[in-house]
């Protein structure tokens, strides 16, 4: 057998005006888990798209050698025929179809007269068993959680006789439990001889599963690090990714918490918009001082996002009750506009779906929540708008040639900065940041943290919802823990540890 199952040699791929990949080399041995790491926009996804034939042979230069033969894929189908399957970050499943139907979509199990449904569901269940998915094959995709959907994707790959599985950020939308399960699944496949390439920002996961780690930076492969013993130091990877020593992952700040309370919420209860009997947020109280960063920890579905959105002008839920005070004044928001005008901002966790208009320019996105600031009597002063957008671009160091660029063309980290610009432009006193660093790289994370520090230094109050506990511990002054809609613990950050937070959650589960 050849030494390498896959060799990519001198791959160069250009987009109009940008060299996305510059002479990239990648070598993968059979039966290993190979991790690709790098900042957003470094070229990892582009490289995988070249490999899978999404970018057809001829649109790039260089050679792909797979199983000893030169490959010229011109479609995804060509690469799948050879057993190379890619699972994208955004799942490609159809919510209204069943697990079985999704699994064999475009690859239907045919009988004499059209689709053989018995065979479809039988084979689907076989593959589901391989990935440890305990569901009926006839269950609709929309009725299962993201974690299980990810498993369906993998089962689907298995149904295509996968030899080389490529996973692009497979755990970015999973909670810790589901992530662990997924990674263990990869390890068990490895024992059976499957090769995988995994792209991820979560360094602890990489150090857990990967045998080799290739670092990509600015369109080039920088180095390949051995991780046979699975004990690599995360800082070692970061050094390769950013090309410099990142002494502290969380920027230090002076803790200057004012006595004035910026926002106070008491006995807040929110019901589910459809199943109005169900309490999504149950009698929650909390406060945040001026100059303070307060963290919200909890598992997915703990009700943190729902709490934030229901406070933010009733943008989620029905039958909302409770008391809300901003700067000591009781507020009763009827809609989002009221909340913005009272100095509240909610930076969504779903920047593509709920935050930005991807087809519009950075400038237009920046001013959207407070357009009147660049208007005279309802008429937009476009020059002023551009100038403001330019200022925020400089301040947040958004990497873009121009503020006229459509937001959809930016990398995740830069999109997040535009989203922050948008809400900073609205001049809020209290900011609720929901997963502000999800899916963005280490360098951009650091910059987002710095922006948060600047905000509290200017006397604003910041509420940070995050599923990454180290981030909460590193950034917050105080941490609240939520579970199943209830507030289960509150602790100062210096006393908090990951174990304590988990313990609080587990404790409340027992009750």
């Amino acid at each position, binding site marked *: 057998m050849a030494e390498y199952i896959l060799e990519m040699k001198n791959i160069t791929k250009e987009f109009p005006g940008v060299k996305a990949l510059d002479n990239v080399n990648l070598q993968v041995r059979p039966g290993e888990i190979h991790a690709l790491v790098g900042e957003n926009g470094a070229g990892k996804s582009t490289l995988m798209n070249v490999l899978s034939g999404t970018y057809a042979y001829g649109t790039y230069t260089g050679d792909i050698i797979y199983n000893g033969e030169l490959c010229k894929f011109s479609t995804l189908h060509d690469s799948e025929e050879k057993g190379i399957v890619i699972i994208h970050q955004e799942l490609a499943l159809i919510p209204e179809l069943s697990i079985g139907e999704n699994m064999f979509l475009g690859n239907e199990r045919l009988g004499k007269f059209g689709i053989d449904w018995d065979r479809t569901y039988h084979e689907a269940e076989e593959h589901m068993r391989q990935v440890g998915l305990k569901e009926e094959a006839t269950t609709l995709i929309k009725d299962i959680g993201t974690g299980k959907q990810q498993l369906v994707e993998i089962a689907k790959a298995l149904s295509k006789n996968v030899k080389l599985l490529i996973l692009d950020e497979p755990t970015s939308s999973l909670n810790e439990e589901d992530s662990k399960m997924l990674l263990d699944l990869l390890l068990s496949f490895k024992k059976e001889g499957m090769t995988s390439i995994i792209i991820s920002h979560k360094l602890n996961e990489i150090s857990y599963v990967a045998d080799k780690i290739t670092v990509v930076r600015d369109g080039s492969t920088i180095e390949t690090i051995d991780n046979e013993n699975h004990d690599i130091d995360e800082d070692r990877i970061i050094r390769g990714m950013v090309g410099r020593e990142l002494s502290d992952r969380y920027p230090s700040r002076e803790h200057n918490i004012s006595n004035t309370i910026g926002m106070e919420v008491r006995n807040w209860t929110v019901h589910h918009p459809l199943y109005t009997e169900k309490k999504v947020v149950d009698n929650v109280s909390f406060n945040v001082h001026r100059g303070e960063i307060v963290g919200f920890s909890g598992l997915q579905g703990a009700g943190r996002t729902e709490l934030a959105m229901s406070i*933010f*002008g009733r*943008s989620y839920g029905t039958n909302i009750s409770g008391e809300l005070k901003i700067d000591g004044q009781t507020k009763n928001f009827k*809609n*989002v*506009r009221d*909340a*913005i*005008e009272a100095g509240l901002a*909610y930076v*969504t966790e779903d920047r593509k*779906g*709920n*935050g*930005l*208009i*991807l*087809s*519009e320019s950075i400038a*237009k996105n920046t001013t*959207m*929540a407070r*357009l*009147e600031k660049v*208007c005279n009597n*309802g*008429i*937009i002063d*476009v*020059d002023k708008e*551009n*100038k403001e957008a330019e200022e925020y671009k400089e301040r947040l160091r958004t990497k873009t040639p121009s503020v006229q660029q*459509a937001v959809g063309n930016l990398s995740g980290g830069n999109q997040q900065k535009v989203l922050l610009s*948008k809400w900073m432009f609205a001049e809020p006193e209290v900011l609720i940041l929901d997963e502000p660093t999800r899916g963005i790289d280490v360098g951009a994370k650091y910059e987002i943290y710095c922006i948060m520090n600047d905000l509290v230094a200017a006397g604003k109050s910041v509420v940070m919802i995050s599923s990454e506990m180290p981030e909460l511990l590193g950034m917050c002054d105080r941490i609240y823990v939520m579970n199943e809609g209830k507030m289960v613990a509150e602790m100062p950050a210096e006393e908090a540890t990951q174990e304590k937070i988990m313990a609080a959650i587990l404790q409340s589960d027992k009750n």
Partner: protein
Amino acid sequence: MNTKAFIKKYTMVIALVVVFILFSVLTGGRLLLPQNMSNLLLQNAYVLVMACGMLMCILTGGNIDLSVGSVVCMVGAIAAQMLANGMPSVVVIILCLIISIVIGVWQGFWIGHIHIPPFICTLSGMFLFRGLGRAILGSKTIAVNNKTFLNIFASYINVPGIDGGEKKWSAFIVGIAVAAFLIFNTIRSRAAKAKKGYKQGSAISEFAKTIIISVLVLLYTWKLANYKGIPVMAIWILVVVLTYAFITSKTAFGRYFYAVGGNEKATKLSGIDTNKVYFAAYTSMALLAGLSGLLWAARIGSVNGDTGNAFEMDAIGSCFIGGASAYGGSGTVSGIMVGAILLGVINQGMSIIGLDNNWQYVVKGAVLLIAVIFDVVSNKKTGKAG
């Protein structure tokens, strides 16, 4: 700007020029006669006016209003009936516009606030208002011959003293004034930008654009001067088009239409009342459809049960030919005007040639498809559907 980018940006303008030259040749130059040039505008007044309203609907997410042809019929019928009963024309006009707004509020309410899908709501309106219109007409054709009413919509501007002779000089004088204003305005806005230290576009391309438009204005008003002068209807069209161009490009409210079409959830979470945006889109659409009904009644001089048939298709077609996205969120008034004029030239050209009515439909259908195919293919790299 290189050639490729230029072609991409001005695809439809180039297509318009090509089609225009084609029909000028095919008609043996008759398309260019002053009378035909004047008619080009009058015959398509309803398309130009309704395309503006349709753009607002389409911007919200590719939603269309199917009822406009029927609204044209119903409002036209009401106007004709009231005029025939001897009501004063100004009162009739005001009442008709109010009725149009009521129709718009009716549809806007269901679509904006109750979230009935626009396609279904306006499909129902299409039957509803067509039926009401026919009922009002009592299945007859009613002539419109009130002098004042015709003067307000379908006469020509005639300035005593200078328009007495063969040439209506007032038209050309207006043309010169508009051209001078356009050139002056370009200089002024560049100077203002320079003063504030803002970035400026390239001087050559900005001036070239202004000069080309000015020359076209001069040529067109010269044609009008050689016929009957400036039609009053042109003023109505201009008022509508300029108002909508202003709203969509300069105002915050106009920006919201693009935002809703771009990402409705994000727009809502930015504190913008999206219900109001839908409501406004369909209310304004019905108002413009009503106005078109009046313009059409005056132009044709009568209203019958088939008035306004398939007008919605012209308005929708102009928008898509003119580059509005079928998914919403993009499209400009200047773009859809090019689309409307393109359709108008084809209509007019085919009529002059004397092409059979049935074949005119075939040609229009083909043009719409080709235009959209072109748009989708040339924007594939950046388009939503890509």
